[in-house]
């Protein structure tokens, strides 16, 4: 049953997944198992398909949509079972930049991997990144920029996080079209990912999930 459920997510069947998850609950499969071995495992495979070049952004988006539809079915049961989040991740596109497709993809893939994501949207000031990270006790802050002129804001976000005295609690990762590992090192970020799938793998490694 979980095999079939995984396939529905991988194929992006956002209607069929609802009945599949309901059937699994009715059959007495623990929601933790449905979540971990069904939905999250499926998104993990979607990430691998993307990394191998078999899947593209549309395939990832429709898979994430199906995953979310399945998640909505088990959400009430998850609360009852008090399943912990794997960690809070704060994401956003830096100040002066309105591009958020890449960041949105990272967001859905991280949610698909079981993380609680707080997406601050685009054009986010360094101060907002830092204060939300502190307030929500984020384990990771992810910064996105599309433009050469805006990526320098990433350094300012790191400074703002430092200023609030929480740098030791937060890992900062960066990505976006002009961003490179070299630039990430230059601004003192903890990690760099060229795409959404790699970002999830990076966060997993950082948080050792």
């Amino acid at each position, binding site marked *: 049953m979980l095999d079939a459920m995984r396939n529905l997510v991988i194929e*992006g069947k956002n209607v069929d997944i609802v009945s599949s998850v309901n059937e699994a609950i009715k059959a007495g499969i623990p929601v933790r198992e449905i979540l971990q071995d069904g939905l999250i495992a499926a998104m993990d495979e979607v990430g691998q398909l993307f990394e191998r*070049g078999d*899947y*593209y*952004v*549309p*395939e990832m*988006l*429709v898979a994430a*949509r199906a995953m979310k539809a399945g998640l909505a079915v088990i959400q009430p049961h998850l609360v009852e079972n008090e399943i912990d989040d794997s960690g809070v991740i704060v994401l956003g596109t830096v100040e*002066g*930049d*309105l*591009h*958020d*497709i*890449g960041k*949105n993809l990272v967001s859905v893939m991280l949610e698909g991997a079981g993380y609680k994501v707080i997406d601050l949207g685009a*054009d986010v000031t360094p101060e907002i990144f830092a204060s939300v990270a502190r307030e929500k006790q984020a384990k990771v802050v992810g910064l996105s920029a599309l*433009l*050469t*002129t*805006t990526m320098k804001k990433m350094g300012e976000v790191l400074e703002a996080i430092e200023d609030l005295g929480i740098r030791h609690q937060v890992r900062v990762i960066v990505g976006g*079209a*002009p961003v*490179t590992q070299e*630039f990430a090192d230059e601004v003192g970020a903890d990690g760099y990912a*060229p*795409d959404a799938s790699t970002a999830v793998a990076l966060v997993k490694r950082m948080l050792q999930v």
Partner: protein
Amino acid sequence: MANFTDIEIEPSWQGFLDCIERKGTPERVYFFELMLDPEISDELVKMFHLVDDLDMDAPFFDEKKTYRLQRFLGYDYVRQGVDRLEMPFNRVLIEDTASLERQGGRSFVDESRGPITNWEEFERYPWPDPEAASTKSLEWYQDNLPADMFILGSGGFGHFAEHLTWLMGYETLCYALYDQRDLVKAIAERILEINIVLSRRMLEFDRVKITMAADDMGFKTGTLISPDDLRQFVLPGHTKMTTMAHEAGRKFILHSCGQLEKIMEDLIEDVQIDAKHSFEDAIEPIIEANEKYGDRIAVLGGIDMDFLCRASEAELRARIRNILDECHPGGGFCLGSGNSIANYIPITNYLTMLDEGRRYRPG
């Protein structure tokens, strides 16, 4: 910085064509850009007093300004298409952070939702009539452009993938490829119909020696939609444009950003492009691209935008010499940025790039 006007360049449309056709090592370096942002153009025109003698309010001032600037910088062409068609897209506006700031901010197409997300909006969309569009600028260049320059037929043209994403919004397009493929197909067909007319009308001008489609199909690590979907909805448009150019005895350049490795064979063998523009170090450095594809097409540009922004003069000159050493022999390479001269690129670095190209002599 050395004064790059020390070395004069005589434009040569024939030389440029020979370079694109890889007819042997050119005697000098040829240059190519998708475009210069207007803030850069205006600054250069002012800096070098290129239009001081012209009346700004006289007819065709912009055309005169453009060809003088292009010629001064060492380009062999002006880029001009059928006068721009009105196609409304959803846009978002933000303050410009570039050093040569764009007044009123810089706008971007809304990535999430475009003006066409369903059939009703498709029917309601004010599709432009390309037959009714003016060709006044093309006509002026046809009659007045110096004889040693050519018209690069481009502008509002060949945006097959881009118009799909701009009209639907990229996110909407992604879902539509699963939920509404018939709508995607209908939009793609309408875009093709418009471009067939644009291509035909540009090719009526014999000084249009090359047509160029500008169509970003990829991002850093892959294509924006799957290669199969590109083959169904996008590449047939480029094939048609290339065929039309070739049947008229002209060449075809594709400008497309992003990682396109999965469709490069399609572009070279099926679409039959003559040249590809836009190479960035983080995706595929120009030297690698030249090694892989340089025996079948010309590769253009390739000075990484970020590098062009941040490198010192010495670093920039060294990188350019290295690229020229690798790519200039045999032809099939034009020097330029990885994309365009955006208003955040320091003008001195841009001029240094041109200067190094002018000074270069094949060993």
